[in-house]
């Protein structure tokens, strides 16, 4: 390109030379004197350079030529002032790098389509109950939708993540398994990397011992060999033939190791009223979400009429799969993107400040250029080229930092965001980075460039030494505006971070109703293929608890089906004898525990007593016995034959919800048509989220739900020492009983609590980092402007001191200006923050978005920093020696 270019320019030279020669030749031929002929010919030709330039303009790439010329010049200028260039590039690298990092997450999670065929047609199908639009589904409801809908090309039901023991070669491993209808992968629109997905019919009993492996599981267990197909994996003592391996990027549902078929019948799934499944669907071509929604709603309305006991007030929700996946992270990602954009804005303001100061030093250069005939547009373009180059350099450096952060984010799964699409530094992200750097380059460059190019030739040439007064005034005002906006924006960021920090602290210190210190939790799953009967299972757990309790360093040990703050299930319950049971129905979170659970977790009894051993024994088959009893006695009334009732311990909130201020002990509530007698009341526990209120809970003896084989049982132990140190001893105890069982999800209760705070922790960490960056930028910006101001006024201050001004006069003169700017900035910032913090109110806990304490503290802090930034240059001004100052110029 450049060679072609040079040749073209040489040819133009040659062409014009030839013209000159021929003109001179003609003149000679007419008899003119040789010396004069050439001179006249040249004069007739006119300004050869101008001819060159206007001719080159015709080639159509003049802009590129100008740009390259400007770029070369700009590079030279930037190289000549390394201090300025380094500071500007680093500032921009911070801003652009942080934006690139956050945008790469936004791109992967919110912007990029799901990695499936025709992903816009994939939907999640859920049940809607009253004010909960997205809840799990029952198998029987699903089969109606599947067979009666007219808008879905296909749909597939699946379990949630279940824990299996992978036995066979090597140490036992806990494996995350999802059981699905055979068409799961085709409904989703994902093809296996190797082999095939489930064939239709493989979701029937007898044909269902086939498995599709995740890429990670395949690499771990088969070393990534294609021979894996046809081999066997043993899950819960059952052999499954490997038929396929999914590609590395496939991650739905998240973190699954193995997919196996789900018995595609009501027997294999669940009856109406039992909601423990999920479903996906694929819309027919050209069908909208709304059409599918009303189609399925019609079926649900019919179900409500046919099965009022279970389906009254139940509807169905159809929602794009992507919306469902990203629902939780969208608000926080957008908040972070907004915050990081503000940091970039601050970086821009700082660089604009630097450029303004530079513009003052380059005034002479601009005057010279204008004198030589450069138009204002031409100067503007050259200065903008410089600033865009600066920001591109910043982007380059920022990309290095961002790519480091991105590869870190890729390597972890702890980031509380959906990982259906991997985060990557792809073309979209690169385009974004280049795009914002150009925009940013123009943004911070435009005002200083406009300012610098406002050259008033007549004035400038007259004023030989001092800078042009009017121009300096304008520039000063621009600088003041920059300082004010920096302080305002930085205050906004700081207040946001302050509110989140307080939220974090509130959550940390929040009483969740349990004492998590020294509590260790371990999950274990007993396969029903080996532990077939309830007494088998009970015997195993009894032996396990006895062993664990006897271990040194263990204070107490108990079993529970779920842990506080984890996925749970709930049952509806209403007081016995309620006139309208539907009106008094209360959703109770249920847990199945051994009696010591309350002591291990530190949940206090507030009334009544713990389960008796009789109640625990009876719970083993009480549900069945009760069903048989009511069959024999159809006229049976609640209140009779209490020996058949189940027993439960309620949380205080549950007792209040059922019976208000009456004593609940001995009272009976009905859940799933089974009467349950309350034997005790315990303190409230925040079971769902630290940020929500206490959850009404019902605890049943663990013996009542022993047939649950797919969801793990939790061993919870209270230790006398550091909880982690007990793990190996407990593992040994488990494996002495059965060496094919594996322990998984080993966490201290404190970790469980911390996991519930992951979102807040991420938001708080990132926003605090951004706010700290913002504060540094604002402080540096304010400092820079104030020092510049002092330098500018050294002469004036010198005169004032010489005329007898006291240091405090100088102080008030310089500081006064800074204080005024900071005051205006803080006022605007506080107003801005008041209107903006409502945006983050959904992330807050225990602190109002307008929390006065945060506002006052943060504002005072920022003012202090701003004053300090003003004071340092002011001190320099106060030390001005009048003699030196007057000789200054």
């Amino acid at each position, binding site marked *: 390109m450049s060679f072609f270019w040079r040749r073209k320019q040489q040819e133009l030279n040659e062409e014009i030379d030839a013209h000159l020669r*021929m003109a001179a030749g003609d003149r000679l031929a007419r008899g003119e004197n040789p010396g004069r002929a050439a001179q006249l010919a040249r004069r007739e030709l006119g300004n050869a350079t101008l001819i060159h330039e*206007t*001719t080159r303009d015709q*080639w159509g790439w003049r802009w590129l030529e100008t740009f390259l010329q400007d770029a070369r010049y700009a590079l030279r200028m930037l190289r000549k002032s390394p201090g300025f260039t380094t500071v500007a590039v680093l500032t921009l690298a911070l801003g652009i790098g942080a934006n690139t990092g956050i945008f790469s997450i936004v791109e992967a999670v919110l912007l990029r389509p799901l990695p499936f065929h025709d992903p816009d047609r994939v939907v999640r199908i859920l049940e809607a109950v009253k004010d909960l639009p997205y809840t799990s589904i029952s198998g029987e409801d699903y089969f109606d939708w599947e067979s009666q809908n007219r808008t879905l090309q296909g749909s597939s039901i699946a379990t949630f993540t279940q824990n299996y023991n992978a036995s066979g070669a090597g140490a036992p491993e806990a494996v995350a398994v999802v059981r699905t209808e055979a068409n799961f992968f085709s409904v989703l629109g994902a093809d296996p990397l190797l082999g095939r997905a489930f064939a239709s019919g493989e979701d029937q009993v007898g044909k269902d011992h086939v498995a599709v492996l995740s890429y990670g599981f395949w690499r771990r267990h088969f070393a990534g060999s294609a021979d894996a197909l046809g081999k066997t994996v043993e899950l819960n003592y059952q052999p499954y033939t490997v038929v396929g391996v999914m590609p590395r990027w496939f991650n739905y549902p998240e973190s699954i190791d193995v997919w196996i078929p789900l018995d595609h019948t009501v027997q294999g799934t669940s009856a109406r009223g039992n909601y423990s499944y999920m479903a996906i669907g694929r819309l027919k071509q050209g069908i909208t979400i709304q059409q599918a929604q009303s189609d399925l709603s019609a079926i649900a309305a019919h179900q409500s009429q046919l099965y009022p006991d279970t389906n009254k007030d139940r509807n169905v929700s159809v929602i794009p799969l992507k919306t469902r996946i990203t629902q939780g992270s969208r608000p926080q990602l957008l908040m972070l993107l907004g915050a990081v954009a503000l940091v970039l804005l601050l970086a821009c303001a700082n660089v604009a400040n630097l450029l303004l100061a530079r513009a003052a030093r380059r005034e002479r250069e601009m005057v010279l250029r204008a004198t030589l005939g450069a138009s204002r547009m031409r100067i503007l373009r050259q200065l903008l080229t410089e600033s865009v180059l600066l920001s591109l350099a910043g982007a380059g450096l920022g990309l290095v930092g961002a790519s480091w952060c991105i590869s870190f984010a890729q390597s972890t799964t702890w980031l509380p965001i959906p990982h259906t699409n991997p985060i990557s530094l792809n073309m979209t992200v690169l385009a974004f980075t280049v795009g914002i750097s150009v925009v940013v380059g123009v943004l911070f460059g435009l005002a200083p460039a406009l300012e610098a190019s406002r050259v008033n030739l007549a004035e400038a040439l007259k004023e030989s030494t001092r800078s042009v007064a009017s121009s300096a005034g304008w520039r000063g005002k621009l600088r003041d505006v920059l300082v004010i906006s920096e302080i305002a924006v930085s205050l906004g960021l700081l207040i946001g971070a302050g509110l989140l920090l307080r939220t974090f602290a509130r959550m940390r210190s929040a009483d969740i109703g349990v004492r998590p210190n020294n509590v260790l939790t371990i999950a274990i799953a007993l396969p029903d293929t080996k532990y077939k009967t309830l007494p088998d299972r009970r015997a195993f757990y009894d032996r396990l608890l006895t062993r664990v309790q006897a271990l040194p360093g263990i204070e107490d040990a108990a079993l529970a089906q779920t842990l506080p703050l984890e996925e749970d299930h709930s049952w509806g319950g209403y007081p016995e004898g309620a006139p309208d049971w539907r009106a008094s129905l209360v959703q109770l979170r249920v847990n199945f525990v051994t009696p010591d659970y309350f002591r291990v977790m530190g949940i206090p009894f507030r009334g009544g007593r713990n389960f008796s051993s009789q109640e625990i024994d009876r719970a083993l088959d009480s549900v069945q016995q009760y069903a048989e009893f009511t069959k024999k006695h159809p006229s049976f009334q609640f209140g009779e034959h209490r020996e058949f009732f189940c027993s439960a311990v309620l949380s205080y909130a549950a007792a209040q919800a059922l019976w208000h201020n009456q004593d609940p002990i001995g009272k009976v509530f009905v859940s799933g048509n089974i009467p349950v007698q309350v034997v005790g009341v315990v303190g409230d526990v925040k079971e769902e989220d630290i940020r929500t209120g206490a959850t009404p809970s019902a605890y049943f003896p663990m013996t009542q739900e022993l047939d649950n084989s797919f969801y793990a049982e939790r061993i919870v132990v209270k230790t006398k020492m550091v909880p982690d140190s007990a793990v190996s001893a407990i593992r040994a105890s488990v494996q002495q009983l059965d060496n094919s069982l594996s322990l998984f999800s080993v966490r201290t209760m404190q970790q469980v609590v911390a996991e519930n705070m992951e979102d807040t922790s991420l938001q708080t960490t990132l926003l605090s980092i951004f706010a700290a960056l913002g504060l540094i930028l604002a402080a540096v910006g304010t400092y820079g402007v104030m020092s510049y101001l002092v330098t500018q006024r050294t002469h004036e201050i010198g005169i004032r001191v010489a005329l007898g001004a006291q240091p405090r006069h100088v102080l008030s003169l310089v500081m006064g200006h800074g204080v005024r700017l900071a005051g205006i900035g803080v006022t605007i910032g506080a107003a801005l923050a008041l209107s903006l913090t409502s945006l983050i109110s959904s992330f807050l806990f225990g602190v109002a978005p307008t929390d006065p304490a945060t506002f006052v503290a943060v504002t005072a802090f920022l003012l202090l920093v701003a004053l300090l930034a003003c004071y340092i240059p002011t001190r320099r001004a106060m030390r001005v020696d009048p003699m030196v100052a007057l000789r200054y110029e």
Partner: protein
Amino acid sequence: MKQHYQNRIELLQGTLDLLILQTLQWGAQHGYGISQAIRSRSGDALQVDTGSLYPALHRLEHQKWIKADWKTSGNNQRVRVYQLTAAGKKQLLSERSRWQQISEAIAGILSPAKENET
């Protein structure tokens, strides 16, 4: 010198392209040749400014109405010779007819026609 300038007729906007195309209609020619041809054909009344000639030539070339080749002249010097392309010939025709219309229109204004009275 001043005298000389007064004798020159300023070229109307856009007419230079027409003159160049017309000149090349008579045969391939280099830049200097074109300016000389326009000058002699107009009886020295039209003098083409070199500062306009070369930009115009390169513009016409960019528009593919003329094309340029390097030829070696009699005394072994390279000159850039322009010639009309097919598209240039078409352009010349349309520019000529446009010029015709303009000059007729101007002539109509300058010599009050009798039709005006009817």
